[in-house]
Structures are given as C-alpha cells and as structure tokens.
C-alpha cells in the first residue's frame, strides 16, 4: 500500500503544481529595489539546479555516491537524479530496497570508512524510520569518538507540505533536526540556494540534513553565470537578505521565502518597507544577520511552515530577545503552520499552512498593533 502511495506522489507532482496557488515566479517588480540576482541571464528550475549540483560533485570526487529509493532507473521520485544512472552507473547511483533504517545506516557506515554518500529520502517524513542513524550514528559520532570518526554524509529530500498529500507526508522537520548538535541543517529556496548549498553540503565533512521542498522543484529562478560555474558554493551558516527594508524584518526559509517576498510587495504598497531574510541555514542559525536586521528595523516576524510549538520561529524569537531586546519596539510575531496534523481537504490544507495574508497581517500587527490577533488553534 505504502509503495503505491509513494508512486502516486511521484507522478502527481506535476498536477500538484497546478494547485500551488501562491507560487508565482519571484521577480522583484519595478524599480529601485536592489536586485540580488546579479545580471540574471538565465533561468533554471530548482530541479535542474539540484541535478547539476549532484552531477558536478559526483564527477569531481569519485567517492561521492547517491543512494535512495527510485534514484536510479526511475530517474528519481521527483526526477532530481535524472540522467545520473546512465552517466555514473549502478555502482554509484544505487536503487535501494524500501529500508530507510538499513540504507541510512549503510550510508553512515560508508561515511565512517571513507566515502561521501548522498542519501535521498523520498520525503523527510520517511526519515523517521531512519532517524536513529541520522542522530545517533551520524550526528554524534565525531563527538563520541573525539574527532576520530567523521561522517561526511548528506541526507536530502523534500520536506514540508506538498499539495493534498495528507498528514503523514506533510510534516516539516527543520526544527527536529536543527535541535541536534552535530548536524548541519540547510533549507534552500531558490535555484541559486539549491546549487550552492548542495555543493557545500556534499563537500562538508560533517553530516548535513538538506531539506528541499517538493513544490519548489519546478520553480524557475534567474541565475547568474557565477552560479552556474562548477566551483560555485555558498557558505553554510550565512543567511541572505533577499529584500532590504526599514520597518520590519521578516525571516523565512524554503517555500515561505516566496510568500514573504510577496507579502513584502503588498506591504510596500501600504508604506511598510519589509526586510526579508532567507535563512538558508537553520543550523547553524545566522543569528548575527537576524539580529543586525532587527536592530535596524526594530520589529520581527518569523515565518515557517512547520508546527508552531518548539519551532524555528521560537528559537529566532528567543535569540532576538537574548541579544537585541532593547531594540525591539513590538513583540516578536510568529507565523507557523496550524498546530494540527495536516488535513487532506484542499480548503482545510490552505488554512493549515501560512498564506501571504497571514504574513501581511502579522507584519502590520508588528508595525501598528492595530489588527487584533487571529485565534490560535
């Protein structure tokens, strides 16, 4: 049964795109906003970005190999590993049986003994079957062995809600993995992020949890020639200011960055200039950038797709309280998914995930405190 469900998810990714209402191409409209995409000459999708990053890293280092369900002959459940089997052969692109605990552990063991595996989970919900290996044998090993055994492994796959896939396929695990010392947790948004961060993750000597987003795979983003270069890499632990602003800071990661940018557009028409920070890295969190921004704008809205309790926004809020308390002019606003397992019905699902209006309202509340707080679940 589970096998059938997974297949369907893979095939339905394209029809899911039709339902993803809020995802338009993100281009700063008009004028004087600083364009962070320098002289964009080409557009690539996130899928192409990930595929090319994997391809280049596998050709640069023969110790890198890819392992996961359907990554080989099926070309990847979401076609991320398209063409890699033909190019590198079945020794380096391994189709595994449906055994997350087993193959995640095999990946960790291979990393202990000198290789650089990239383990793909069909979605991070399935990583729960392998979480013992991610946390106990990967994250903690360098510490327990006092530096003797390092684990240069990357666990990657889609994270968070897709469209209509139900409660067991929709959870966001950023907060779960970011809780653990010894792991690095990355959440790319654009094609540039995807390429740069995946390359950095594969080259990194520590275990990295790389949280992609299924609905972003088909999104195109403009990229510069620098991004397309095979040695392009982004630093881990550095957030990116996607849009500069003066009145309120909005932090987001993954798909929510797109929503935050749209919210910033709407807010700018109402005279509120929002600064949007794309976190890129949840662990280590770029507290310096966040705090510097809050010290400039004095107001903060954190946006995430996952459940609110003990989430990423909670950590960011606390970090700001610890380091920039005197600079805050308003309480920190936290936008998160509804505190319920993801419902299936399309309208309920829309209510369970933050939408652009939620971000706009939160930013206004932070700025004027004039819109009453919405009821919390």
């Amino acid at each position, binding site marked *: 049964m589970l096998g059938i469900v997974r297949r369907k998810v893979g095939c339905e990714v394209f029809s899911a795109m039709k339902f993803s209402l809020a995802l338009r191409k993100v281009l700063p409209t008009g004028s004087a906003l600083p364009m962070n995409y320098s002289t964009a000459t080409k557009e690539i999708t996130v899928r192409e970005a990930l595929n090319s990053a994997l391809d280049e890293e596998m050709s640069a280092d023969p110790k890198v*190999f890819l392992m996961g369900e359907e990554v080989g002959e099926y070309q990847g459940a979401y076609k991320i590993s398209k063409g890699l089997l033909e190019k590198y052969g079945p020794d380096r692109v391994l189709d595994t049986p449906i055994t997350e605990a087993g193959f995640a552990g*095999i990946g960790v*063991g291979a990393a*202990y003994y000198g290789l650089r595996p990239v383990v793909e989970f069909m979605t991070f919900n399935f990583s729960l079957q392998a979480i013992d290996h991610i946390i106990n044998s990967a994250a903690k090993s360098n510490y327990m062995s*006092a530096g003797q055994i390092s684990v240069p492994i990357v666990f990657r796959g889609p994270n968070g809600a897709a469209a209509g896939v139900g409660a067991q396929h929709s959870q966001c695990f950023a907060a779960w993995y970011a809780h653990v010392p010894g792991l690095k947790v990355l959440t790319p948004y654009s094609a540039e992020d995807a390429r740069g961060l995946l390359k950095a993750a594969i080259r990194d000597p*520590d275990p990295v949890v790389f949280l992609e987003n299924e609905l972003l795979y088909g999104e195109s983003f403009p990229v510069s020639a620098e991004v397309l270069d095979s040695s392009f890499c982004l630093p881990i632990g550095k957030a990116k200011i996607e849009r500069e602003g003066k009145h309120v800071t909005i932090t987001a990661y993954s798909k929510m960055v797109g929503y935050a940018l749209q919210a910033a557009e709407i807010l700018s028409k109402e005279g509120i200039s929002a600064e949007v920070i794309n976190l890129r890295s949840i662990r280590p969190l770029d507290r310096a950038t966040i705090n510097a921004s809050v010290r400039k704008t004095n107001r903060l809205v954190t946006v995430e797709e996952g459940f609110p309790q003990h989430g990423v926004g909670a950590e960011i809020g606390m970090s700001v309280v610890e380091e920039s308390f005197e600079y805050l002019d308003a309480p920190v606003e936290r936008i998160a998914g509804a505190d319920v397992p993801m419902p299936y019905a399309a309208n309920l699902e829309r209510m369970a995930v933050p939408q652009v209006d939620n971000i706009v309202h939160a930013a206004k509340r932070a700025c004027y405190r004039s819109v009453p707080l919405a009821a919390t679940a």
Partner: protein
Amino acid sequence: MSAFSAAKILSPPPFVARFASEKSLCPFLSSPSVPALTRSALRSIRLLRTPLAVSSDVVIGQKPLASSSSATQNEDVDREVALVLYEDMVLGRFFEDMCAQMYYRGKMFGFVHLYNGQEAVSTGFIKLLEARDCVVSTYRDHVHALSKGVAARAVMAELFGKTTGCCRGQGGSMHMFSSTHNLLGGFAFIGEGIPVATGAAFSSKYRHEVLKESNPNGLDVTVAFFGDGTCNNGQFFECLNMAQLWKLPIVFVVENNLWAIGMSHVRATSDPEIWKKGPAFGMPGYHVDGMDVLKVREVAIEAIARARRGDGPTLVECETYRFRGHSLADPDELRKPDEKAHYAARDPIAALKSYILEKNLATESELKVIEEKIDNLIEDAVEFADSSPHPPRSQLLENVFVDPKGFGIGPDGKYRCEDPKFTEGTAQV
C-alpha cells in the same frame, strides 16, 4: 569428559535440512542439567527439528564446511597460535574483572556491560583479522576493542572518563571508537551497528570496484558483532537482505548468550535458531559452539575468507554465555543457577588451557607467565587511568563538528569558532 566436548554442538553445513542429532539443534538441551523450559516450549522446539530450510540456488551450490564434528582439527593449531589466543582471552577476562572492581569502587560509572564468558567469540574472530579490516560492536565492546589492538591503557582511561582515553573520555564504555585500529564503535542501540557495519563493507567493495584501489590479499572485511535480541530487530533483516543482494564482504556474528536483560531468547523469538535466518536470505548460516575458541576460529577462517574473496556475507551464530549480569547494575536474578553452573563448566579459557596442556603445546608455568604479564598490564592500565587528568573545560565544545564553522556566526559577525573565548567556555553561545 574434557570441557571441550561437554556439549556436542555440531557446525552443520549451511544448507542441509537435517541434523545428526536432535540435541545439536537446541543448545539449551545439550546437557540434562539445563532446566527451565516448559513442556510446551520443548515441544515447539522439537517441532522445528526438521527444518525444511529451503535455501536459494545460490547456497545449494556451495560446498559444506570442512568438518562438522566437535573435537576436531586440532592439528591446525600450533603453539604460537594457541598462546596468542590464550593471551588474548586472558586479557579480556582479567580486564573485565578489573572493570567490575573499579566500578564498585566508584572509579567507573554509568552503564558498563561486561563480556566475561564470551571471550572465545571475540578472540576467535578478531585475531584472524588484519589491521585494515573493521570491527563493529555493541555496548559490550571492551573486549572487542582489546582484541582489535586498542591499548588496555586507552580503554581503561576511557572508562574512567579521562582525557587520555581512546575517545578522550567523550565516548565512555558503550562508545569505543578507534580509527587507527578500524574499530567503528561501540553503539548503545540494539541493531544500530549492523547497518553501519554493512556500510563499511559496502565502502570496502566500492573502493575496490569504483575507485579501483585493490589489495592483492582481497577485500577489507568487516565483522559485525551483535546479540540474540538484535536478531529480532528490523535493521538486522534489512541488512541481511542488502548485504547478500550486493555481495558485501561482511561477516555477521551473533553472540547468542540466550538472554537479553531478563528476557530469554526463547521467550522473545518465534524461531530461536538464528543461523537459519541466513539461508532465508541466500547466505550460508552456521551455528557454532561459542565457548570453544578453536571451533569458532575454524568457522571464522572460512567466513572471513569467503568475504575476502568477494563471495559475500555469512551469518555465524555462536552459542555462548555471559557469566555476569547484563550490566553491572543488573542483579541477574532471573537466570537459574544450574544454567550458570553448566556454562561455567565450559569456560573457554579453562577449555583452551586444558587443550594446550593435553597437547603439550606449553607448560603450566609458561601459561602462568602469560597470566602474570596480563595482570601487570592491567594494573599498569589502572594506574595510568587513575593518574590521568580529567578533560579540561575547553574540551566540552570540541569535536562537535569537523568543520568548527558549524557553530555559526557570532554576534560580532565572525565565525564563532574564531573567538578565542569560545572553546575556553567563557564566551556566550
């Protein structure tokens, strides 16, 4: 009756469905003094007696194990080998006894799981390995570490939590790692080491086939040690499947000591004969008397050679027994005294000693010299550990990441690890 042949456990050829005697299949029935099985349990065990183990064609084509009677192939063991084996087992035993003493004196703490009684398995397998071969163990890993070559001083200091330990005091009893000796842990979770070992074996095969690094003596072999309780865990089956599917150079060694903590193997397992699970996945499964180091060694030679050739994995079930409780905190009340006495009579060290003396491979005084040497070694290890310093405060934050930039960027905008106060523990994190 010499201790050796006290129980006639045969090593059956992997794919044969019938057995010479009923007794051989069920270890607990091999001596009349072992009680504690109800009639219905016995009946159900006997029903399993003629396992129609349908093996895959792969296994049927293989040759059976060289010989399968109990007291045999002694011709192969010469004096040198016998003394190496003796010394290694004595080292394991004396070390563990010292651990118990130190624990009750408060020098060791936390969870400590001792290996007394099972030395034949560790010595039998690990003494055949080369330095490049890997061992993956469980929380009962002190003796595996010693057999693999980690210095007794380093292991003792690690147990005391001192900075001179093999993991600088950061791992502890259950997490022994050594990259120089290729000891890949030391895992607290049941079954966690099995996929890691399978991954190391995968790595060894990958290096040979993809990276084209070959060794004229064959592939690097990985030996995974785990217990009877682990054989009910999902990861075990997942790895048997993948190891055979990809023909990985690994030996799965089950140290079947018949008990989890207080849960006996028979109560927890629908089919207690673990070796049969090998042929179910297409690999040979052996059952061997784990209290007899020479028999273990004989099976080990075959299994390790198989892996080194590239013929794939083997499952070896060693029937053994732990003389102490599950851990030093376990009062060990559920195991019957006669069962304990039965296995105490089959002490592997006493057995090897009487074998050596019978075959005149060494004299009693030579063996005494070895024992004294080990005694001194252990005492020296304890003194070393005692006098070693505790880890400094700055060690707390070290080694979380290989790349310390993983701690992120500090409030001044620079990487935290570049702040000299960071590892001193005086900076705000």
